[in-house]
Structures are given as C-alpha cells and as structure tokens.
C-alpha cells in the first residue's frame, strides 16, 4: 500500500519552483529591486543622518525588518498564487484526482514557496551589503528562523489561496494587512521609541514579534524576548498546519 507519494510531492515542488524562474522578473527581480530601494533610501541616504538604535547603526538596524517584509509578502503571495491559479484555471482536477494527499501537496506547494523566499532572502542579504554594513550574530539561528517564518507564511498563503475566489481577495491580505502590520511592526524603528499607549498597542501587532525575533538573530538584542518570538511563530505554524489539515479533510473550496 502506498503511504506517501514522494515522486508526486517532488513533481509539484519542481513545477512550482520552475514557475518562479519562468516569471523571474516578477518573482525575483521585482522584490529584490524594491528592497534595494529601501536600503538606498532608508539605509544609505536617510540612515546616515539617523542615530544608532540600541547601539546598532540605523542602516543595519532596518536590515532584519526589511528582510522579513520581503519574506512575509513573498511567501504568502507565492503559495497563495500557487494553489489559487490551478483552482482558477480548473487545472486543480489533476491534483485532486492524483494519489497525493495533504503531505505531498504541502511539501510541493509550501516547500517551493518557502524555498523561493529563501533564495530571495539570500539575494537580498547579499544586495544589502552594497548599501549598509551589517553583521549576523547568530547565523545558524538566523537561517532556522528565516526557514520557520518562510514555511509558516507559505502555509498561511496556501490557506489564503484556497479561501480566495477572486484575484482581488488574493492581494487584499498581503497588501492591506501584512504590509501595514509589517511597517508598523518595528521594521524601521524600535517599539521602545514609541510613547505610551502606542508602545502597548504595538505589542498587539504579531509582526512585532517576528521582526524582533529576526533582529535578535542579527544583533543579539531586541525589543521582546526571542523565546516569545519563537513561541508565537511556532504557534502560528501549528495553527496553519491544523487549518490546512481541516481543509483537506473537509475538501473545503477544493472538492465540491
């Protein structure tokens, strides 16, 4: 009896990864260019006039936040498009009629989305060295954290792509929720710089914990505890996996 279709998972993974290279201009060049512009404007230009934050040069301070901004947005968008497009074109029939279950589908779609984000993160980090000086205090931890965040938000994107029934809905969450929360989540500032009650309000923003978690791996200090950040990220990952398991069990939005 077949319990896991490894070739099926690999086929989805390769196809999804190929899709990114087929649309390299949109999937790779555009986000790298956008993030580089942030480095130029906030890092090289304005950053030189700003005070250091927590002992870290401002240009370097914003690197983890900008990296996270790209990771969240690209992981979510890649995975949501990955599952939404076959639903939209009807090609989902092939997936649904194949001997692939939740594990193969997730490894294929979410794995590819996460790997794409990691490739982007690597390119962005290399590009950042052209504009700002930064260090990574805990590189192994940073890598694991980036993988964790990419996987979590790819899962979230998969849920989004399953839920959406229009292209508008597909872009609403990344543009109107993730982007503002990331901007207000301490990407460009330390929340300790905020006066009360705004500092307390900021702590209700879940992205604050993600940004600070990654910032800790870079500079060894952050506004909130790394363990709290890690715990919340793992909880988010668990919630996404549970939701997707329910989606597959019930066939919600996938099977009629």
């Amino acid at each position: 009896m077949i319990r896991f279709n490894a070739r099926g998972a690999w086929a989805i993974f390769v196809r999804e990864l190929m899709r990114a290279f087929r649309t390299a201009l949109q999937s790779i060049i555009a986000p790298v260019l956008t993030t580089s512009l942030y480095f130029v404007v906030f890092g090289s230009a304005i950053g030189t006039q700003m005070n250091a934050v927590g002992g870290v040069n401002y240009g370097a301070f914003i690197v983890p936040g900008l990296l996270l901004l790209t990771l969240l947005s690209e992981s979510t968008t890649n995975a949501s498009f990955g599952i939404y497009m076959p639903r939209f074109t009807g090609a989902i029939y092939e997936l649904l009629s194949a001997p692939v279950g939740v594990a193969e589908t997730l490894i294929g779609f979410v794995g590819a989305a996460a790997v794409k984000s990691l490739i982007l993160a690597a390119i962005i980090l290399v590009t950042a060295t052209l504009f700002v000086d930064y260090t990574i205090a805990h590189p192994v931890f940073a890598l694991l954290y980036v993988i964790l965040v990419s996987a979590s938000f790819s899962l979230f994107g998969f849920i989004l792509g399953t839920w959406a029934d229009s292209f508008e809905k597909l872009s609403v969450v990344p543009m109107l929720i993730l982007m503002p929360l990331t901007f207000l989540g301490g990407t460009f500032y330390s929340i300790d710089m905020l006066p009360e009650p705004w500092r307390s309000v900021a702590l209700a923003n879940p992205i604050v914990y993600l940004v600070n978690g990654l910032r800790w791996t870079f500079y060894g200090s952050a506004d909130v505890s790394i363990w709290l950040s890690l715990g919340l990220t793992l909880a988010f990952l668990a919630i996404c996996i549970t939701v997707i398991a329910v989606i597959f069990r019930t066939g919600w939005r996938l099977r009629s």
Partner: protein
Amino acid sequence: MQPILDIQGLSKTYRGGLVALDHVDLQIRPGEIFALLGPNGAGKTTLIGAVCGLVRPTSGTIRAFGKDLKHDWREARRRIGLVPQEIATDIFEPVLRSVRFSRGLFGLPPDDAKLEELLRALSLWDKRDAQIRTLSGGMKRRVLIANALAHEPDLLFLDEPTAGVDVELRRDMWKQIEALRERGTTVILTTHYIEEAESMADRVGIIRDGRILMVDEKAAMMERLGRTEARITLARPMDRVPDAISRFPVTLAEGGAELCYRGGGDGDAAHGGGKAAVAELTKALIAAGIDYSAIDIRESSLEDIFVDLVEEGVA
C-alpha cells in the same frame, strides 16, 4: 468477472439541495468502452468527479479494482486517468514538461522514451517544446489526453472528449480511443454525440436527473428498444386501413397515399424484429390485392432510443 469499477447506491446532493446523483448503481467491466449518455445537468460529470476524487459523495460506495475508494484511494487513483471536459491546464507550460509533471504526480518514475511514444501517438511530439497556450483547441485537448495517459492508467474517464472539436479531429480521437481498447484500457466516456457512443461503445448507460435509466449492451439496447419505420407509397390512395392488414401497427398518412408502419423493439424481437414484420406486411398487401409503388424503410438510431427514453423520463 469482477467489475473494474463497482458503484453502489451513490448519491450526491450539493449544498443548496440540488440532487446531482440519486442512488446510482453501475458496474463497469474490465476492457470495455462504456458510454454514459445524458442531457446537460444529468449528473454525468458529477459521477465522474465522484470516482476521480473531485466530488465528495453524500452516500454510497465506489470500489475500483476491488478496492474501496474511500480507504484505498491512493492505490486506486494511481490507476485512473481523467480527461476533463474543459481545457484546464497550466497553459504556460511546454507540452513535454506538462506530461512529465502528470507522470510524476501519479508516482511513476520519469520515462522520456514512453512519453515520446505517447506524444508521437497523439501527434504532439513536434510540439513538445511549445507552450500549451500556443496550440490550437484540438491540440490542447490532445495534451489533456496525453496528461491523462502519462501514468498509463487502466481505467480512463473521458468527459465529453470531442465536445467542440471538428469532425476530422473527432474521428481521430475515436481512433485513439479504439487504440486504448486494444491495449486493454477500460474507457468510460460521457458524450452528447450519440454517433460517438454508437460507433465505439460496447455498452451504453443512460442517465437523467442523477438516475441511471438503463444500462445495456449497445446492440441489445438497439434490438430491444429500436424501432422500424416503413413508409409504403400506395398505387391508389385509401380512406381507411383495410381489415387484411389491421393486425399490423399501421396508419395512413399523406391523405391516404402512404401507409406508415411503426414497429419493432421488444414486441417483434422474437419474430425477427421490425424488418421481418415489414416483409410480412408487404406479403399481406399483395395477398389483399393492394398495389404499392415504393417502400422507404428506416431503423431507429441510438439517438432515437436515447430521446425516447429521456422523454419518457420527463413524462
């Protein structure tokens, strides 16, 4: 012989209350070509979807290759192929990569030699590097067939395989389906084209409003339900049917200038069917001294049977 597909009491009620399948029982024999005929909305696509995993049945059981699809779906699906009604695929993919993906998705190792053979058989080899979006409608449909055959299924569903394709391509598709039969693949096709079922199917099922109205060998169905219509042009018009031929199911037409016979089917089968009855009728006419100048005789087609059955269902 154990059926390759055994459907028992299958029902599907969509949210909103639409009953798409209503206690469907259907057994498909290995190696046969089975045509499922039915008007739009009869439940053909839902039935296929339920077997292929696209639709969640409300109740009933489906066994394929002796395995319950609810529990052993991986094993069963590996051996089932589906060509959908709509051209639904990633149109930006090149043809060869698309069939490679399909093969991998179903858990088979890469085998480019086999895929080459498949694409050549479908006249797609020259287009293997072309993006699917650049192909004609007929070629795109062939790609869907190639995708469905890439994992060498034992049971193939073709949902309206020739809908919207030109006559030449339709005949080409029929040849390919015939070739599949020769390879031992069991084919279940839904179609609007009765001609398609008539020329290819071993057995025919008629579905309407989610219920299977009839399943039979095509030949048996035509013999049992087929009708013969004969129009006999009389030398001299008559004002009533003479007593000598009143035992035949005849009526007068064209103002008494034509004698119209409608018979055959179950009632006459034991006596040689409608054609034999028409021969008896002509003998009776001659014996009664009734002269005639022409006979036009026509057997009903599967389409007539289908229309009659569906209309009876409506009534």
